[in-house]
């Protein structure tokens, strides 16, 4: 059995701490268990430590330095620039700031569209799929979920074709007499397009907007909305991820005890009322989860940009994640690239916290009361289940 204790360390990477040394007779059962515990955890600890914790520390240093990608970032020629990289991105006017602000704008619009759309689509599909006497449930669920398990590269290639200028979408649009745009070459923002349609001269935008700039971008540019190219990417991502979230909603829906729904029905609640005052409050934890995961995921969009647009056209699909990669690998601005990564990290953490705060406090009491009422009406079962799903 002592050989058994040693075995995992043998399989561990070569640099694992040498095993077996402390396996003295003094340890007894607890001591041996303690040693085994650390040995069991050692490989994971090593991998996560070396390729997760150490990289973050190292990148933090690089983000404070002027390393250009030559030699080691700890070498002699590398200077400490303090918050220089950060201020170049955030406050100092220049190309770096304009690019970064543009990427923030692009990603913000992307989040603003993707998160609500994918959540509503996922919830809608789950509600329909949850119908009691539905046939072919498995088939539909599989169809909607399948894109989520395929490679982002593969589906991006498919959508490049679907949205190409002579592709599927434009052929369908042509059938109803609409002349589709050349999606991935079109940098026009949809808000600008709408304003243009309303009679605003987009070539000479109102001076109040075009004249003032914040963070290196004019107000007019901030208000552009997602570009046509970005819209194609938004469509792809909503299409891909809705399936996963649909499964989460489906699981939560099936957790709602039938008694609760029935009680509401007996009380004379209509379909919409049942949804609004019974189903939705009970889905609240799942809704929060889906929104949080959506928010975290959308601020990280990288794969689709890398494959489909590389930030083009006109930098309108540039996102912080892609910009971080581009600054580092293509422009050798490693300090800036790392700084972008940390700012992105901060944005994601901050938004998660804000969302948690907002969703926790807002009409929490009212909804809790609704759940309580529903539970009471159901007489049994509802209370504990509601807790479990929380």
């Amino acid at each position, binding site marked *: *059995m002592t050989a*058994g204790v*040693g075995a*995992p360390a043998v*399989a*561990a*990477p070569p640099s694992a701490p040498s095993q077996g040394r402390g396996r003295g007779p003094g340890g007894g059962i607890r001591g041996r268990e*303690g040693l*085994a*515990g650390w040995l*069991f*955890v050692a*490989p*994971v600890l090593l991998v996560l430590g070396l*390729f*997760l914790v150490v*990289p*973050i520390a*190292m990148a933090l240093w690089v983000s404070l330095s002027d390393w250009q990608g030559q030699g080691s*970032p700890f070498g002699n020629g590398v200077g400490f620039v303090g918050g220089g990289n950060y201020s170049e991105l955030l406050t100092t006017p220049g190309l770096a700031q304009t690019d970064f602000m543009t990427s923030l704008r692009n990603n913000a619009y992307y989040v603003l569209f993707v998160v609500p759309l994918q959540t509503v689509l996922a919830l809608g599909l789950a509600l329909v799929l949850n119908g*009691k*006497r539905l046939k*072919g449930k498995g*088939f539909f*669920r599989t*169809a*909607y*979920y*399948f894109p989520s*398990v*395929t*490679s982002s*590269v*593969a589906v991006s*290639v*498919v959508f*490049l*074709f*679907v949205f190409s200028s002579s592709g*599927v979408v434009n052929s369908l649009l042509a059938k109803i007499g609409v002349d589709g745009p050349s999606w991935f070459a079109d940098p026009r923002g949809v808000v600008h397009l709408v304003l243009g349609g309303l009679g605003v001269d987009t070539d000479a935008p109102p001076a109040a907007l075009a004249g003032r700039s914040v963070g290196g971008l004019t107000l007019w540019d901030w208000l552009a909305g997602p570009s046509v190219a970005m819209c194609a990417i938004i469509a792809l991502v909503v299409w891909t991820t809705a*399936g*996963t979230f649909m499964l*989460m909603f489906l*699981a*939560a829906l099936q*957790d709602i005890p*039938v008694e609760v729904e029935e009680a509401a*029905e007996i009380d004379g609640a209509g379909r919409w009322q049942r949804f609004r005052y019974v189903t939705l409050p009970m889905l609240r934890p799942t809704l929060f989860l889906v929104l949080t995961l959506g928010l975290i995921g959308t601020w990280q969009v990288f*794969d689709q940009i*890398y*494959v*489909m647009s*590389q930030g083009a056209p006109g930098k309108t699909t540039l996102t912080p994640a892609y910009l971080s*990669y581009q600054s580092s*690998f293509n422009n050798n601005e490693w300090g800036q*690239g*790392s700084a972008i*990564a940390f700012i992105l990290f901060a944005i*994601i953490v901050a938004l998660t916290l804000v969302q948690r705060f907002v969703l926790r406090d807002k009409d929490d009491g009212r909804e809790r009361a609704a759940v309580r009422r529903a539970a009471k009406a159901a007489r049994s079962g509802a209370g504990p289940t509601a807790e479990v*799903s929380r």
Partner: protein
Amino acid sequence: MTTTTTGARPAPVSAPAGPGRRRGGLGRVAGYTVLVVFALVYIYPFLIQLATSFKTEADSTAHPLALWPDPVTSAAFGRLAEADYPRWFLNSFVVALVVTAGRVFFDSLAGYALARLRFRGRGALFAAVIAVMAVPGVVLLIPKFLVLNQFGMYDSYSGMIVPLLADAAGVFIMKQFFESVPVSVEEAARIDGAGPFRIFWSVVLPMARPALITLTILSFQGSWNELPHFIVSRQSPELNTLTTGVASLVSGQLGSGNQYPLKLAAALLMTVPVALVFFAFQRHFVRGGTEGAVKG
């Protein structure tokens, strides 16, 4: 029997059908209409992809909506076979295989230790695992390159594989599972004098089949579909995996024309292995997918 326990949810598949609402046919028809329309939206792109990869380039541009190639040609696949595609496939396969084996073994070892073995620092370690799961992957893009470069592992198989050999989410899934297994069996083995590894290997692991299958599938799918890590851990063309290779095929121009049959065929072939695994183990996929996401 649920593999992991974030909540006592029944698997979606086996949910008990409650007493149905006696609704009129109208609602049902509307429901089916919605489902069918969306099913088309979800399936049609894949059918188009399949059809287009057997089309000629002219046909693919002229008739993008046609579900039957005219003429049918396998030229795209022939060109892929002559190009570096087999190499990419092999690389993806090797990487996914080693990573999956590593993750399944190391994650379950750590998961077992965190669930069962009592040792000093266990609580802190678990907290660290949770914290690690919260770090957004894309933030690590540049940092990972920096470390691989520093260690001299950049642009090598080891640089591509070793950082993926363990993942916090897998540890979490395994820990949750082991906590759901009754202790009594292990106690019996311990009284018989078996050491921790023996108990883990011959007693606990065989009972963990459902969780192991879930973890295997998630790891395989994850490493097969991985793109960013292979972008920052290598640059040589011969180390291209399918993801980086196909991505370069799309952005870099290989000859003239838009090459849609070729690109779509490349994307189609790389989807096949994951699709096979998906349809064979769908139940585990569905479960793992939601659970994996639940913990973050």
